[in-house]
């Protein structure tokens, strides 16, 4: 006759100790994750934005250098200019349009075209007095479509700005 298995009422102290350490480690990890989330280090927070200056035209590009996958956001380009041309063109090289899709712009672009190395948006210059310096601002409403590191170049009035961002899954 086979021996009947005994019910075990004792505690496996070694397993409990290991589990306690793991549990504490996991709690620390979760806490760090929440703090990082609050700061925006995992996207969408105070530290998730970056500003790349465009000194020659007294402008800057403000964008999310830390973003989340399939999340909508905004990037804005601001610059000062005299009305030299009726149109201003903002172009992005292929690295950005492949990873970040601009769903709309504010103000609405007067033209959009695919260029050999990316895409370009044209904006009509608003009416203003001759010689008057004005602040221009274009906002791109974007959605991230690629996970990982993205590096691209924005070109405006002959000025280049390198934009680097990381998209979390």
């Amino acid at each position: 006759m086979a021996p009947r298995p005994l019910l075990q009422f004792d505690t496996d102290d070694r397993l409990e100790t290991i589990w306690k350490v793991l549990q504490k480690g996991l709690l620390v990890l979760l806490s760090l994750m929440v703090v990082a989330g609050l700061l925006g280090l995992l996207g969408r927070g105070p530290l998730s934005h970056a500003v790349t200056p465009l000194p020659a035209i007294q402008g800057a590009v403000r964008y999310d250098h830390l973003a989340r996958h399939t999340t909508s956001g905004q990037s804005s380009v601001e610059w000062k200019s005299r009305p030299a041309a009726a149109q201003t063109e903002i172009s992005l090289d292929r690295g950005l349009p492949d990873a970040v899709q601009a769903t709309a712009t504010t103000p609405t672009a007067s033209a959009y075209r695919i260029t050999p190395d990316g895409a370009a948006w044209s904006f009509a210059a608003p009416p203003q007095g001759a010689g008057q310096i004005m602040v221009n601002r274009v906002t791109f409403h974007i959605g991230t479509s690629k996970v990982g590191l993205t590096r691209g170049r924005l070109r405006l009035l002959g000025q280049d700005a390198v934009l680097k961002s990381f998209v979390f899954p």
Partner: protein
Amino acid sequence: MGVIIRSVVVYVVLLVILRMTSRRIMRTATPLDRVLIFVFGGIGITAVLHDETSMTACFLALATFGLLHVATYASKLKIPALGLISDGARVVVFKNGEWWENRLRHAHLEHRDVIAEARQRGFKALEEVALVVVEHTGGLTFIAKSDQASADNP
């Protein structure tokens, strides 16, 4: 950041609403109680994640809920009054053949809920029961008259 703030708000609101609506969600839940859990869960997910579908947002929400739960548990150990607020206290609803109707109503229980639970515990009649307690965990505790007698006269 938004996900974390929304998670905290939803956790607190759900805790309050669950405490208000039902105290027997896990132990003696009826189908209606279960519907409540599903509906609350569905509404909560929409409110927490909003327009975000990324895994990072999902992990952040889970981490926040997990930490809040641990923090609530730790706070209950330090401040027992907090446990009374989050879990409630035990309530006697039946004693020596007499129903305490107000307490039953307050616990959102009916006679038949208690009687059904008594049948499942093997009682054949309520005359065998000395005491029924609704525990803070949501479960029902039955003290048989025979047990009470042996406790009184050891």
